[in-house]
């Protein structure tokens, strides 16, 4: 079976400190990983982004979750849904702009009863510093609302694990996609990377 390439610890450290000046909150990264494991997540499709890269690198480092990098977010969601259909518990990770590109595949997943967990960086809540994320923050939550996809905006890192577990329970019980949105302050050290 094809496996995602392993990354060495130096690359993980680079992701934590970030060549772009990003420093992640280690306790938040740990909580995401622990939450995924507690929820039974065993398949991840992701397009690297500046918000969730630390989570993705940690999953690659620690293992236990098959990780696959895609070329577009809607492609990653379709991959995750395909994995669900064959018995995996998937998550698709992306920044909010990816949800903007994914209306059709999310709708297909709803109609076809083929869900996935969605982990989404950047959103419409407070804290977005960059003007060039203006379009990104306009599309994520409105698309989720338009499709009636339940979502939760994390605000306290202490909630990460519980929210992931409950989101996955909703996915399996209701067979609908569920989104978890991750603001900057939840996953990055305050004042870093801004």
């Amino acid at each position, binding site marked *: 079976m*094809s496996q995602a390439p392993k990354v060495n610890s130096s690359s993980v450290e680079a992701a934590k400190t970030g060549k772009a000046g990003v420093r992640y909150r280690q306790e938040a990264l740990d909580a995401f990983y622990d939450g995924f494991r507690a929820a039974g997540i065993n398949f991840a499709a992701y397009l690297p982004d500046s918000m969730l890269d630390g989570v993705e690198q940690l999953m690659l480092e620690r293992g236990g979750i098959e990780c*696959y990098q*895609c*070329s577009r977010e809607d492609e990653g969601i*379709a*991959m995750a849904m395909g994995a669900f*259909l*064959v018995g995996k518990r998937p998550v698709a990770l992306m920044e909010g702009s990816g949800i903007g590109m994914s209306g059709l595949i999310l709708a*297909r997943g709803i109609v076809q009863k083929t869900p996935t967990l969605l982990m989404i960086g950047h959103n419409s809540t407070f804290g977005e510093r960059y003007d060039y994320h203006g379009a990104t923050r306009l599309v994520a939550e409105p698309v989720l609302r338009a499709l009636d996809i339940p979502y939760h905006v994390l605000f306290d890192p202490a909630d990460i694990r519980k929210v992931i577990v409950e989101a996955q329970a909703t996915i399996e019980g209701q*067979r609908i996609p569920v989104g978890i949105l991750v603001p900057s302050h939840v996953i990055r050290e305050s004042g870093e990377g801004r």
Partner: protein
Amino acid sequence: MNRTDLLQYISTLRNGDPMIISPGLANYPIAQAKDEPLTIYNMDMPYTTPMALGMALGWPERKVIAIEGDGSLLAGPGVLSTVARYRPKNLLIFVCDNGAYLTTGSGKAPTATVFGTDIEQLARAAGMENCLTVSELNAAKQAVDVAFTEPGPWLLVAKVDKQDWPLERGAHTLPMYVYEAGLIFHRAALQARSVKENP
């Protein structure tokens, strides 16, 4: 080459393997040949190959088949780079290239393959190795045989004509609604895996 002949041949080799079919007339000959529970009909384009890729990675013990059209694949060709990155040996991508958006009604709207876009070369440029274009049915059958027996991932481009469309178009129905497809497929996959893993 007649597309229906090729699809019926693929159906004879399928042996119940998971399959996703892009939107259009390709769905009906496959359903008529033999309906299988591990089938997703009429996938919205361009998600046939991406969803099949997720299946192939998530279930490496089974062959997974994507039935693509030229228009469908060209709507999201980036997935070929992801296929090349992970190289699932169990993924088979069959592209019926008729050079047209046939389901539009007139069938007169051409795809880019009419103007020189080469899907096989696109896949090779993305990093895939097992790629082939065939124009005759016998050659296509031989290529399909190889794809079903040799490790993939495979991408086979079959240059098909449009003569099947007047015959196929009509009041055909598929054996399941999209609304129930995910439930049927998921249940069948879990059952198959349970039998395999807990005989």
